[in-house]
């Protein structure tokens, strides 16, 4: 027995010697969509640990989608398994906040003082706020842009160096591209899946989803009508077929669609898929009202979950680092997202030169001042509401309803799903 205890003692001593002298904090980080973010996360955490040798980052197994991510977090909330840090889709922050799982970053931001100096402007901070509460820091952000096939634009009599700037021009040129025949379509607008691209039209017209106190639907006003009419005209005049989401992307990559409207986050994948089949170009997405118009922000935010004070300090360091200029300089070239940090965008140390060399990435960058939060609906039906909107959009696209009918139906359905106050 004595023999054994001696071995144990020796083992314990050598283990203690192997450990670094300073107190080490280990943070468990969870993130969604490893296909997009695995390399990015590895790079960022490695660099972070180099700069902060007293903090160790370990990864929980990533979730395939934002939905699965938030499920995992909510299941683990309050248990030992809960990670210290996670990344949540910007449109799910409200859901997380209503369930009171995330740490309020407000006090930490205040303590930090000059966040703007680190590249976090107020606009950028607002992207991850819910009702004024700082739930996270925007990590990877995107906005909708216009992709176009320069060869088809030229063939239809357009000027690829001077892409259309209004929806009227897009629709007219789309119609001409469709008229080229040979199975070519004019436009693919990614209306499926969620309400993000509808927001792009609605916010672009200066509209809002709900009224100020969130008690009534506001998207059925004149702005919403214009948005729906543009969608209908894309089908009727602009040569937009009824595509499923993957079908649209495929057709565009095959060189069979003139214009594609979707997130700038898909840029790197689109570049890869297009290869040298045609000349791919990007430009700003038109706004129905160029004066009051805005664009929704897609992407995710880093959220702190740990309630442990010591860990929170370390987690805050990591959150700032990931969402900061270095993090952005890793995320942007790897995905096509826009920098969520103003320092990263301008400073040649980070991405200044990158944009000069990669003009395709500039469309998203140039729209950054227009970005407003992706609106999330209140209450338990918050996510379901977006599906109702998509269903009604599909009725316009397959022309089984007029814009007015679809808008009225969407409004009354959504009205019924809002929380009663």
């Amino acid at each position, binding site marked *: 027995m004595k023999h054994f205890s001696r071995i144990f003692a020796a083992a314990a001593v050598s283990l203690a010697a192997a450990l670094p002298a300073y107190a080490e904090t280990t943070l468990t980080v969870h993130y969604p969509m490893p296909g997009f973010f695995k390399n990015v996360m590895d790079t960022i955490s490695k660099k972070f640990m180099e700069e902060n040798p007293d903090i160790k980052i370990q990864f929980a197994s990533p979730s395939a989608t934002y939905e*699965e991510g*938030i499920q995992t977090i909510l299941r683990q909330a309050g248990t030992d398994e809960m990670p210290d840090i996670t990344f949540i889709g910007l449109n799910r922050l409200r859901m997380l906040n209503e369930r009171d799982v995330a740490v309020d970053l407000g006090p930490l931001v205040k303590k930090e003082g000059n966040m703007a100096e680190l590249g976090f402007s107020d606009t950028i901070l607002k992207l991850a706020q819910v009702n004024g509460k700082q739930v996270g820091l925007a990590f990877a952000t995107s906005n909708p842009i216009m992709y176009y096939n320069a060869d088809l634009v030229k063939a239809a009599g357009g000027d690829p160096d001077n892409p259309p700037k209004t929806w009227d021009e897009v629709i007219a040129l789309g119609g001409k591209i469709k008229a080229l025949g040979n*199975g070519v379509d004019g436009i693919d607008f990614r209306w499926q899946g969620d309400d993000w691209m509808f927001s792009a039209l609605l916010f672009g017209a200066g509209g809002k989803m709900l009224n100020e106190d969130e008690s009534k639907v506001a998207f059925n006003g004149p702005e919403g009508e214009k948005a729906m009419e543009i969608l209908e005209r894309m089908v009727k005049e602009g040569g937009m077929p009824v595509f*499923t989401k993957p*079908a649209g992307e495929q*057709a565009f990559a095959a060189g069979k669609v003139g214009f594609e409207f979707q997130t700038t986050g898909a840029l790197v994948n689109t570049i890869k898929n297009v290869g040298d089949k045609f000349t791919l170009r990007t430009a700003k997405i038109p706004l129905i009202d160029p004066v009051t118009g805005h664009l929704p922000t897609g992407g995710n935010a880093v959220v702190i979950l740990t309630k442990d004070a010591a860990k929170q300090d370390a987690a805050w360091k990591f959150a700032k680092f990931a969402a900061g200029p270095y993090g952005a300089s890793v995320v942007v070239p790897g995905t096509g997202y826009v920098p969520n940090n103003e320092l990263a965008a301008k400073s040649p140390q980070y991405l200044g030169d990158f944009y000069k060399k990669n003009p395709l990435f500039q469309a998203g960058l140039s729209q950054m001042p227009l970005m407003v939060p992706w609106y999330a609906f209140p209450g338990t*039906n918050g996510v*379901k509401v977006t*599906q109702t909107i998509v269903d009604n959009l599909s009725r316009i696209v397959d022309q089984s309803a007029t814009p007015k009918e679809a808008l009225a139906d969407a409004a009354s359905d959504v009205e019924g799903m809002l929380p009663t106050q």
Partner: protein
Amino acid sequence: MSSIALAGNVSSVAAFHRRSEDRTAWLLAAPAIVLLLLFVLLPVAAVIFLGFTDFELGYGKFRLVGFENYAHLITDRTFRKSLWNTSVYTAIVAPVSIILGLGVALLIEGEPRARGFFRTVYFLPVASLIVAMATVWQYLFHPTIGPINELLALVGIPGPNWLGASNTVLYSLSIIGVWQSVGFNMVLFLAGLTAIPRELYAAAHVDGAKSALDRFFLVTWPMLGPTTLFVVTISITNAVKVFETVKMLTDGGPNKASEVLLFTIYQEGFVYLRVGYASAMTVVFLAILVVLMLLQYRVLDRRVHYT
């Protein structure tokens, strides 16, 4: 058997034996019983219980709401639509895949050469990953660049927008469903066919069953009874359980035209996080399956000829 025979002679010893045998039986069955309890019965009980609550993932508290969820289900347009779509899908996929599976099995059985080759080819869809194959189908069905529509265009037929249009999407998914399950049904039928004694065919021949059709209806079909019952059960369950293709290809759209039960449950439970309501749906889903199975066994079992 021998211990029972012994029991008539020495009753006390036999009783002891029986008891110890009982104990051994329970002991041997215990792992299975425990696992069944833990992984089948308890979850079902939990789902039934949650169906009576308004539990939402992330909120610690929930409240018992009685039959509120079920009352809501009856008027829920989405749920009714998905119930209807699932029925249509099953009504197409189950019979077609059974008949085709049987046909292919008979053809392969009657073909002396390359039997292994055909068996493998037809079984491939079963062995392949449906998530990956869905991507292939999505390309085949592509309205403008898909090979199917390009072939149709060659002969001057304008191809439909297979997965994009609300009036064709369910049929397109059914085609994929049939493709997926024919091979599986074929293998089951092949196994059933090899189990039929050759002498029966010889006897039928002697009795004057000359044509292939006669032989099929006199010998093959009745002898395949137990297999068919099993195939019907499996096919219907699998068709009702359709999910991956919908999730991968259409997301239930356009405008809920391909919304099926499991997809609706997934959306409610895992995307909208309304676990209580999703549980109520699951209970209905389970009830439908159980009723279907009972009906089948009741109706079909009587007509099945077991050897």
